[in-house]
């Protein structure tokens, strides 16, 4: 066993800032949707817009980081071991089986994680981005878009994607408690380091 840097500084910053922004967006977003009244529609809208632009900027940095560091490979999906992991979460975790996946810094996400995060990045987020920007710039739609879309459609797609985001967050937060202790999955996202069966990287 050795202490390995598994989440780099930018990655941790990206993760937690993104978490903060997504929580703000969900909170203000469902208020804008009319689910409850907290800040008032006007302030909720302003905060939602600011958080949305911040998230977009953060994502641009994150995309650049993923491409330049090659970290995007962490999210390439694989069926190899996928069912073993699913079997573990459904049954093994209760019977005391060991987690079937051996994490390394080059492949830090298990096959189920890869799939979930890829879905988050390639499906939920882009739908939210595109529908959100269309929503924000509704008044400036060119005729081509205005002829094909309505604000209602855009709003419903945006809301639907927000529900998907909320479901992802609930499952994701819960899954982080499923390490060998409640916090053993969460700690590396704070400190960056995790004890893995691989030699420490040389810096």
């Amino acid at each position, binding site marked *: 066993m050795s202490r390995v840097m598994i989440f780099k500084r930018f990655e941790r910053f990206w993760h937690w800032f993104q978490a903060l922004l997504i929580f703000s967006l969900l909170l203000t977003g469902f208020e804008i949707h009319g689910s409850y009244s907290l800040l*008032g*529609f006007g302030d909720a809208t302003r905060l939602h817009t600011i958080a949305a632009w911040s998230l977009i900027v953060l994502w641009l940095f994150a995309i650049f980081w993923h491409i330049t560091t090659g970290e995007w490979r962490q999210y390439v999906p694989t069926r190899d071991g996928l069912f073993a992991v699913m079997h573990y979460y459904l049954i093994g975790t209760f019977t005391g089986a060991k987690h079937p996946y051996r994490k390394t810094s080059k492949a830090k996400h298990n096959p189920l994680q890869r799939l979930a995060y890829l879905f988050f990045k390639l499906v939920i987020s882009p739908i939210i981005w595109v529908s959100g920007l269309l929503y924000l710039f509704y008044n400036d739609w060119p005729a081509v878009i205005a002829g094909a879309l309505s604000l209602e459609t855009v709003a419903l797609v945006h*809301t*639907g994607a927000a*529900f998907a985001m909320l479901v992802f967050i609930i499952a994701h937060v*819960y899954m982080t408690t499923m390490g060998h202790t409640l916090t053993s999955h969460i700690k590396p996202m704070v400190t960056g380091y995790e004890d893995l069966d691989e030699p420490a990287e040389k810096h």
Partner: protein
Amino acid sequence: MAKLIMAYPGKYLVVSALAALLMFAGTPGWAAIERSPATADHTKFKSLKGPFENASEVTEACLECHTEAAGQIKETTHWTWLYQHKETGQTLGKNKVINSFCGMAVTNEPRCTSCHVGYGWKDMNEPPPEADSAVDCLVCHDTTGDYWKFPTLAGDPTYIPREWPKGSGKMVQPPDLPNIAQNVGASGRANCGSCHFYGGGGDGVKHGDLDSSLVSPDRSLDVHMSPDGANFSCSDCHSTWGHSVSGSRYQVNAKDTLGIDIPGHTDLSRASCESCHGPAPHEKEKLNDHVNKVACQTCHVPAFARGGVPTKMWWDWSTAGKLDENSKPITTYDEDGHVSYLSEKGDFRHGENVMPYYAWFDGTVEYTMVDEQFDIDNPPLEINRLDGEPNDPGSRIWPFKLMQGKQPFDTEYKTLLATHVFGADDASLWSNYDWPKALEFASEKSGLPFSGHFDFIETRMYWPITHMVPTADKALRCSSCHTAESRLAGIGGIYMPGHSSSPWLDRVGWLVVALTLAGVVIHALARVVFSRRKQS
């Protein structure tokens, strides 16, 4: 709100917070408009020294210099009480339309024509008197406040001391015509208000956004007309052209796309908000995103009848005529001290600080004319109908006063009826409380048919709301509309975030969220149970 934004750092945010503070401070760099000094001192004109037998003689004196004025006036709606509607082809105007207040002006002449901009129009079957001296200059140009068209004299002021209101013991003295004539000037709020504030038979009765509180309003009632605000007269917006006043309730400019009116570029009529404020007046871009669908007045006139003068919201003529045991007319008041019943007029409901009724509106108003057959089986009858729809680029959401009540109609001809309420004759409703007699007389006098069979039908009438604009900080909040209990609930044809939603999407969405939460909880509980078993 500024505090909340300040909690999030960043230069942009500080700047916008400051901008917001400035906006809400509500004192932009403007003050009461200054007016050019007059080029004539009317006290120096010999012709205006008097004495004058009557007001017509003052008019004759005016016309000695203002040679074209009478001719100009006679071309206007203020004189003809006729309006040819270009869109609907209907001939409208006070001469033709019926409303849900006193019905029609026709057959009630000396009372209703007291607001005619002339003298002596005693029979509306005839056009107004032809003589130039019949034009009333003073009602619009008196600056002393002493000129008052007596309510029952077909446009003239009283020339002898007369009691008004009837039975009050208060005597109205004849006006000092030479003094009034020597102090004429540009029309102020009180001039226009002497008729337009009192439509429907009393202060504030008819419009809801026009009443005597606008003579000297504070900024929170009307920022434009307030002496502490811009101190506008009506004609600063209702700009005139040869005595013809711009701005019409029959054909409203519901969406002014000309923007700020610049000499040489536009028509110089300023009777729209955009005429001065332009098409994108807000510093916050998102607010400007609203102007294509929402009229300025919808947010900036949050309620009408705010100046302490109630407006009539319901008028039920069917109950008129009840008398007490001594056969005397009855007056009752509601808990706010507003009249709720008069034998002459029936039951009323008054309102103050009334939230408007909202509707899509393209500016065109169609009328149910007095000779038009309508569907009597489906009340309420709309006396006027608002054109406009959500997808029409010329339509916007506008605020209205919704006037409701009951008024007489002909059960056989299925038409509304002219009502003869006022008159010294013994047929008028107010002299003997006999509906059949009053309606018969109205029919004979007006030539409008009446079968002899009548009943009362519920009617509604829409009055556009556009005055009583307070300071910007008093405009509607976002959440006035963007909320479940939206003011615009039921407006239709528009997706309003915070108000509109798809019930099925919400149901499915929250169900999936609940199932996920349930799955997590069950999984967690199972983990606890199994780990205890292992330990034991």
